[in-house]
């Protein structure tokens, strides 16, 4: 079973993820902010990371930049999920294996995005 890490500081959003990923064949771990996400990734190598962008402590884009510098996470696919426009984060495309999911999204949109990589 593939391991997913979702870094999302909004408990309600976490609830949507839980609902949408219920019954899917992934093992999902939740981190409630950037720092916790970073700690989680240091202890284990996940197959895919979903990042919220605007978070306290470490923002998603900052976290993403850190991941790409880490040898274990250089190639790990990342999905950035935010209510910001996709083009705001277009510049990250160059860092590879990253896609953008604009909130709100449906279960189908989320699954399609995950299946692109797993």
């Amino acid at each position, binding site marked *: 079973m593939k391991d997913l890490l979702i870094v999302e500081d*909004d408990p309600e959003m976490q609830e949507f993820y839980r*609902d949408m990923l219920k019954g899917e064949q992934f093992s999902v771990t939740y981190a409630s902010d950037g720092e916790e996400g970073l700690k989680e990734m240091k202890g284990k190598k996940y197959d895919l990371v979903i990042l919220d962008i605007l978070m306290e402590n470490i923002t998603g884009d900052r976290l993403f930049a850190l991941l790409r510098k880490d040898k274990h996470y250089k190639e790990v696919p990342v999905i950035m999920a935010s209510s910001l426009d996709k083009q705001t984060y277009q510049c990250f495309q160059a860092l590879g294996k990253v896609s953008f999911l604009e909130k709100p999204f449906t279960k189908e949109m989320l699954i399609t995005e995950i299946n692109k990589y797993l």
Partner: protein
Amino acid sequence: MFTYNKDTFLNINKIIFSSLDIREVYQTMSNELSKIIDFDRLTITLITEDNNLYEAFVVQSKTREDTYIKEGDLYPMKDSLMEKVVQSRKPVIVDDTAKSQFATDVFLFKEGIRSRLGFPLVYKGCIMKHQKLFHIDEKKYPIEFKERIIGSINFGSRQKRHYSKKHVDFVSKIAPQLAMAIENTRLFNRIKDAEEKYRNVVESSPDIIFECTSDGKFFLINPSVEKILGYSVHYFYDAGGSILSLCHTDDQGQVLREILQLLHGEKDSLMDFEFRVVHKKGNIVWLSLEAIPIKQDNKIIGIEGFCRDITDRKKLDELKNSLIRDVTHELKTPVAKMEMAIDMYRRSFAIESESTGEKELHLYNLLQNNVSRLKNIIRNVLDISRLESGVERLNISDFTFVELVDQVIHELNPIAIQKGNTITHQIPATIILKADREKMYYLLVNLVGNAIKFTSHGRIDISFMITPYGFEVSVKDTGKGLDDEAIKHAFDKFYKETPSIPGSGIGLAISKNIVELHNGCIWAESGGKGKGAKFTFRFPTCHLMKQAT
């Protein structure tokens, strides 16, 4: 006393051409002159351009220090000795000022001067038909040889009947040279003034003004560069082609590309090209560059232009951007979660399945419609704030216009068909635009969407026209039409002719902003209520890339 001395005469000629400061020349010349010609008073007067006044160019009086005529002052020509000299172009002798032949005689008489000799100064030289100070091309600017009277040299004596033909003969030998020297001085001073003016403009400009060769050697750069970038002008003059390394590493490639395009003639000019430079102290400075190539014999030999420091504007833009970003997030997040909750609700309670009650379905639809309406309003409000804050920049690219129009029609056709409307267009497939495609898409979706909204069982037509002022795109419908009041306010924010019709009322205000970002204009026309409407926007020709054949 009058003695003709050849040496003195040659000396005078030498003096005349020894310096471009005519007053300095005059001092030495008058000393020499006094050796051979008797005078108590000597003046050189010059005619002003309108011929009504004359200027006392130099005045020297042996009789008194305080003379009636003062250097640098202007006097009326009328009834003066000067007037007579100018009109007759011949020397004029006044034997006795007591007779008051000329208005000026009265004043000179009071100063003790009894006789006068006025001699015309005629300039025999070339006069440019088109006066251009630098780089004179004789083929373009024919030179004309012409005689022109520029003023007079005037002698005064305390004795009556002092001046005679002998004096006239002598003065006639030095007058042409004197005239030429004066005219050369005036021309030199004009060039000097023009040069000084030009230099002042360049040196006092807050922007960096520069000229450099195609291999990057600066031959002009003004002191502003030191204020803006911390490096002295000498740094630039000495640096040769290595100036590119001052640019921010991320921008160097783009700067080089843009400059090369200019040097290779692929672009006529650079406008508002923004890039970063690293200040001597290490901080980032944002510059906006405008430049054009320098041409010589149709060959590009360098570039010239100016750079404006836009660092403060960039910081403000960044601040505005982050504010807009935060507000966007705050407004969009709850709506996004509502939408997701509605979707979750639909899946959890199997809404839209056969078992759903009518009331449940109605409430569900009501929630969904209003959330989606709220979402649109928020998006529009954010769009207009971004446009109005001035942080929004055009993302220009070349695209085939008809493809964009087809895309818009394809997306809006289902709603148009629902209302019994047909959408047509007459866009030539050859039209390629140079504009912000995404914003043009919004613009067309808004105009065509509006046309659909206000038209039932009618036609909507999109047309394209090239005019002398640019190109025009019109969206014409056969719908409800607009009255004069609605035409006047159509592009106002939150203006809605019919408040009950859903919409934020800012779509056209956004459209207007988009058009204006492209330096264009937009307007509405209608034959009145029930007679359809036509919305047209015009972009300047620079946004029309080409018309492929």
